[in-house]
């Protein structure tokens, strides 16, 4: 990747559906993915609930985003991470995470990658800019 490609990270720390931040934040990621930028997305704190599988907002009458999250890889958003401690603090395991796409060659489902907080902190330090949603 060219050196002048800027690293932009999104941190998702808010829970989904109670407020619009996660939903509108996703719209920003999809647009930004179309530009020349090195995009990564990190789910931490209550943001881990945004990548819990099986979400269904039909009865709320709210347009959900689970289908879009299921296709993040198709939007070329492939660096998707979950903070392990946030996940475990909330009683979730890796099995609870939704699928964000499938591997082009093997058709294996791709899930967000679970990282330790220190690994995420190191990634944050390398960013050009960070947008919180």
């Amino acid at each position, binding site marked *: 990747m060219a050196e002048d490609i800027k690293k932009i990270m999104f941190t998702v720390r808010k829970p989904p559906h109670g407020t619009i931040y996660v939903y509108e934040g996703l719209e*920003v990621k999809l*647009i930004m993915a179309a530009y020349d930028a090195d995009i990564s997305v990190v789910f931490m704190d209550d943001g881990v609930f945004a990548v819990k599988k099986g979400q269904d907002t039909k009865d709320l009458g709210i347009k959900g985003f689970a289908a879009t999250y299921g296709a993040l890889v198709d939007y070329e958003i492939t660096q998707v991470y979950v903070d392990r401690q946030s996940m475990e603090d909330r009683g979730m395991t890796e099995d609870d995470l939704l699928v964000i796409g499938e591997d082009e060659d093997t058709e294996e489902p791709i899930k967000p990658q679970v990282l330790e907080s220190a690994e995420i902190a190191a990634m944050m330090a390398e960013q050009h800019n960070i947008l919180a949603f």
Partner: protein
Amino acid sequence: MKLAVCIYEGPYNHEASDTAYHFIQAAIQKGHEIKGIFFYHDGVYNVTRLMEPPQDDRHISNRWSALGASGIDIVVCIAAAKRRGIVDDVLVPNVRISGLGQLTMMAIEADRLVVFGD
């Protein structure tokens, strides 16, 4: 240094708009270039000309408009605005409605992007 600012919350209801404004004023005084100000989420309500606060309080949309008049690019997200009934007709002068591509360019081109929200 080139700075950009993104504001997520509406006026008066949350301090984010005030903090952002004071931050920007201080940055201008120090000679930094403000690459742009982007309003997102309920932040789009910051720049309507329909607000009429009590006279002894700050007038938030006029304040942003004055910054726009000084040449700073102030952008209201079209998707967030349309969802909330904010259209060109209700905006104060010196701000514009545009797409999320503008926020993307700010994030890429500004040396620092600072987000103010809840």
